[in-house]
């Protein structure tokens, strides 16, 4: 792969307060323009791993984002570089109106309110949600919520997108629209997903998590076949 990795993770280990080992020595690299799918059973560590990529969780080992070590003093810069889309958009859309929610990140970064609103409206137009600027997030459909949540991430102009189960709650047309939208975005992406259609459409490679470890990596199709990770196919291995 050319150049320095955007994300470099070396021997990452993490244990929750109740003693559950969630990550047990993960090594991972993400390069510019790459899209990597994270496969694995529920509870295998995908979401925990994703939360480490912009410093929401910090375990043992090393995580570097765009050359910056994930540590307290670098967190504001890292959170601008890594945009995280959560699985449940209701957790991500917490402001009273759509435009305020999308502007939240840039306002927190110290941008003036007029400029923040201007940027928020521009990004909302890009994701096809400019008509919903003044609406309350809880009046939106699942697909609209997902688009607005994505706008709230994109407005920060991140270099890396980390998406946790982005097609959850979406109907097939909503999934199709989201895949098309994500496919147009130039950022490198890490996508934790069970959705093999999404992975096939977007990912250039995949890794497979099991018991907090990456146990395999390779082409998307190869891992789907090897682990029987297609809902309509028989068991793999």
């Amino acid at each position: 792969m050319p150049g320095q990795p955007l994300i470099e993770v070396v021997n990452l280990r993490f244990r929750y307060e109740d003693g559950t080992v969630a990550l047990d020595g993960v090594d991972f690299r993400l390069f510019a323009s790459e899209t990597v799918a994270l496969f694995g059973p529920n509870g295998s560590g995908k979401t925990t791993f994703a939360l480490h990529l912009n410093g929401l969780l910090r375990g043992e080992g090393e995580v570097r984002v765009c050359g910056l070590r994930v540590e307290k003093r670098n967190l504001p810069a890292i959170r601008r570089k890594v945009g995280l889309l959560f699985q449940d958009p209701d957790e991500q859309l917490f402001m009273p109106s759509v435009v305020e929610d999308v502007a939240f990140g840039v306002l927190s970064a110290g941008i003036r309110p007029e400029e923040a609103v201007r940027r928020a409206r521009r990004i909302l137009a890009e994701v096809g949600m400019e008509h919903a600027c003044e609406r309350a997030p809880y009046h939106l459909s699942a697909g609209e919520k997902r688009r607005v949540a994505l706008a709230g991430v994109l407005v920060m102009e991140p270099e890396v997108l980390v998406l946790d189960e982005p097609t959850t709650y979406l109907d097939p047309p909503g999934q199709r629209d989201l895949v098309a939208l994500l496919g147009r975005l130039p950022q490198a992406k890490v996508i934790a997903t069970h959705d093999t259609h999404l992975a096939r459409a977007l990912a250039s490679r995949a890794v497979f998590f099991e018991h907090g470890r990456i146990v395999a990596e390779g082409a998307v199709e190869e891992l789907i076949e090897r682990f029987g990770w297609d809902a309509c196919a028989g068991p793999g291995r």
Partner: protein
Amino acid sequence: MHHVVLEQWSRRAGPVHALDPRVKLGVTLLLLIAVATKPAPTAAQFAAYAGLLAGLVLAARLPLGGVAWRAGIVLPLAAAFAGMSWLAGDATRAVTILLKSYLSVFAALLLVGTTPIARLFAALERLGAPGSLVLVLQFLYRYLFVISEQAQHMRLAAGSRGALDRAPRRVRLRAPAGAVAVLFARSSRRAEAVHRAMLARGFSGHIEPVTPLKLGGGDILGASAVAGVILAIRFGL
């Protein structure tokens, strides 16, 4: 649902909607104090307050019947206290309690029906309400409906299993008690997730309002006129 209707009303255009939310908040507070601090308003005073509020509702181009009907939501609660006065032999006081409660809720509905909730929160903050309190109110408003939706789903799920219908009362009461506990646990988990989502977008402890509030001569003039009428009713009639 009430909040959806109120929110639609609040986004209409009109002379009352256009007033700065700070003056609307101030005038509403004045009205509530005027109504509450007069021990036994006369029938003329009640009629004048009602006339003033009805006039403002019509000026705001809101449906008078709709506001009047929704204000009745307070009557069952007020009736409990009015009933106690009635039983104690003070019928006048009982009627006063009912009318005061009704007018107060009517005034509050007029405020929220003509002011988008985001502008109301911004006004509270600009008027010096503690930022953390406004933040809590904002989240309460945002997530109350999410939680009530979850409660509805749980009630449906319990109903769909039907077995509780024939269970003894002691067993039947355990189901809602358990549901409340589950809702509490879920809300707590959601609060953590929301906080995490805020941190991921650079939250540093304070939310910048995006809504510009501009206090003009027209706002002060309009508010002074209404305040003058309120004071005239309170001390004059």
